[in-house]
């Protein structure tokens, strides 16, 4: 936008040459074209969401009509109540939040701790261990799925939350270590030096100086940790057996296998599961982007 107006004002005092005017029009046309393409694309991308929400408010007899009605009539919000009461989704939510909270504590404490070590302390072997962090980041989870399952069943941890929470207390996942390391590297060393002069130990510097400064990284990591726990399907599928231990994700999956054709209720339950994620996105958009930038591409 800036460039266009600049060009206008600088070109005008001269002859307002045809060349400039043409460039201006070309630019406008180009932008118009981009808007059109983006609008069409955005509409296609949002169609599944629209379909989801519309279906979730329809009564069952209106679900099975072809071609479908685009405005639910009668409008039926009771679908949500029925879907969320049919299975104990309140309990599932409580279970999920238990896992989420434990994961948050684990990741925020141990990933930042390790990340600080990798970012700020020079010691022999550091590069080797950091390469290992990156390597574990690249290794697909399924490779260790079976042996880990056997380990956990030997420990008697099947149908408990331990397999979904305890491992995170050991470093909190390679991705999070990496994220914290990137963040701590961007903080000025002078702060740590000031702490050292005042007699602060390295642990004090980490806990009293660096951690209070890393709220953006903490927020980012917290968001991704929440999403991972909220969305996780395979973990609860393998390790949770009893209905009273289920998470929201596994609850929705079993709800699906019970309700073969009540698509309106299924859509209501799905909407209820998606909604927190979308709300979180709108509340914390900045940290989503920060996480992507931090993780991706700064050295």
């Amino acid at each position, binding site marked *: 936008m*800036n460039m266009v107006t600049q060009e206008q004002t600088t070109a005008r005092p001269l002859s307002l040459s045809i060349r400039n005017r043409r460039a201006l029009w070309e630019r406008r046309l180009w932008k118009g074209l*981009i*808007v059109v*393409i*983006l*609008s069409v*694309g*955005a509409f296609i*991308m*949002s*169609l*599944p*969401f629209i*379909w989801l929400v519309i279906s979730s408010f329809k009564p069952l007899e209106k679900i099975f*009509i*072809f071609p479908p009605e685009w405005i639910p009539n009668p409008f039926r919000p009771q679908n949500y109540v029925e879907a969320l009461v049919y299975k104990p989704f309140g309990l599932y939510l409580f279970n999920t939040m238990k896992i989420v909270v434990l994961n948050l504590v684990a990741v925020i404490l141990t990933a930042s*701790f*390790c990340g600080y*070590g*990798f970012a700020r*302390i*020079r*010691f022999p072997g550091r590069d080797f261990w950091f390469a290992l*962090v990156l390597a*574990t980041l*690249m290794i*697909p*989870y*399924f490779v*260790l*799925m*079976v*042996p*880990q*399952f*056997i*380990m956990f069943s030997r420990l008697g941890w099947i149908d408990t939350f331990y397999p979904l929470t305890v*491992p995170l*207390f*050991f*470093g909190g996942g390679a991705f999070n*270590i990496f994220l914290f390391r990137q963040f701590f590297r961007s903080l000025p060393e002078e702060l740590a030096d000031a702490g050292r002069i005042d007699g602060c130990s*390295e642990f004090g510097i980490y806990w009293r100086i660096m951690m209070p400064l890393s709220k953006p990284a903490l927020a980012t990591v917290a968001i991704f940790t929440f999403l991972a726990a*909220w969305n996780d*399907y*395979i973990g609860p599928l393998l390790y949770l057996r009893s209905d009273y231990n289920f998470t929201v*994700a*596994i609850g*929705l999956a079993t709800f*699906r296998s019970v309700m073969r054709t009540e*698509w309106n209720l*299924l859509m209501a339950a799905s*909407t209820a*599961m*998606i909604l927190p*994620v979308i709300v979180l*996105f709108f509340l914390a958009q900045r940290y989503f982007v920060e996480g*992507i*930038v931090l993780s991706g*591409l700064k050295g």
Partner: protein
Amino acid sequence: MTTTTTTSITPHWTHRFWPRSLAARRAVTGYIFISPFILGFLIWFLIPAGVALWLTVHDWNLISPPKYVGAKHLTTMWEDERFWKSLTVTTTYTLISVPISLVLGFVLALLLNTKIWGISFFRTAYYLPSIVPAVANAVLWAWIFNTEYGLANVALGMFGLPKIAWLQRPEWALPALIIVSLWGFGSGMVIYLAGLQGIPQVFYEAAEIDGAGRWAKLRHITIPLVSPVIFFNLIIGIIGSFQVFTIARLVTNGGPQNATLVYVLYMYQNAFQNLKMGYAAALAWVLFVIVVVLTLFVFKYIGSRVHYEDVR
């Protein structure tokens, strides 16, 4: 503390094992800091990897005692039709879904990197699908691909096309899953976008002075400078799509006629439905080797064409 303040700030019990030289002290501190990772690596990584190796040469159903079988699992695999099928399905899925998401993500990131009114709305619209929880995503798309009343066939009907039994016909089930995966292309797109925004504007200004047009700027500035990001997305895409599981399990559960029997699903069935722990571990190792070889191949042949420049 109160009695020792005159001599030292650290409590005196540390003197016994806290090393004196600065370098040694730093090393100890460093290792204390990364100790959670080291422990975690040993317990949740190295030991399971060893167990997996041990499993590949054993027959074990978790109940009766394990039996040593040598390389039997590998020969079984060689003759296992469903193994080859699952490998083909996963490879096809990867070969189609990864390049399309790569191109879509890049093109959309280019378009979204312009300054127009409402751009943040557009960015959100393209990104949101990629954060939808996998289970909810699967339930939603199972409904969209419903033959009689689903959105997909409604859309086809608008163009006067006949209905497709997406999830019942072997030839359409895999394309349906690929469409689902494409809906989530926004996760790669934002990474491109971050990369595009990191390109210094001076490069474009310099090129404009030299008379470069849109195409020339794209070809000679944008693409080379974001090529590390393209490469990153390619690697992540390949690794990710070899692990696809949730959608295949919940939407089609591998059917019809194994048309969507992706590799991890087949592994899961072996381990947790047939309780063939040894065979499943062998399958995991084989896929791991395939992914590693593929990644190295990509690094060698495509990685060498990536343009690295420290723009900071």
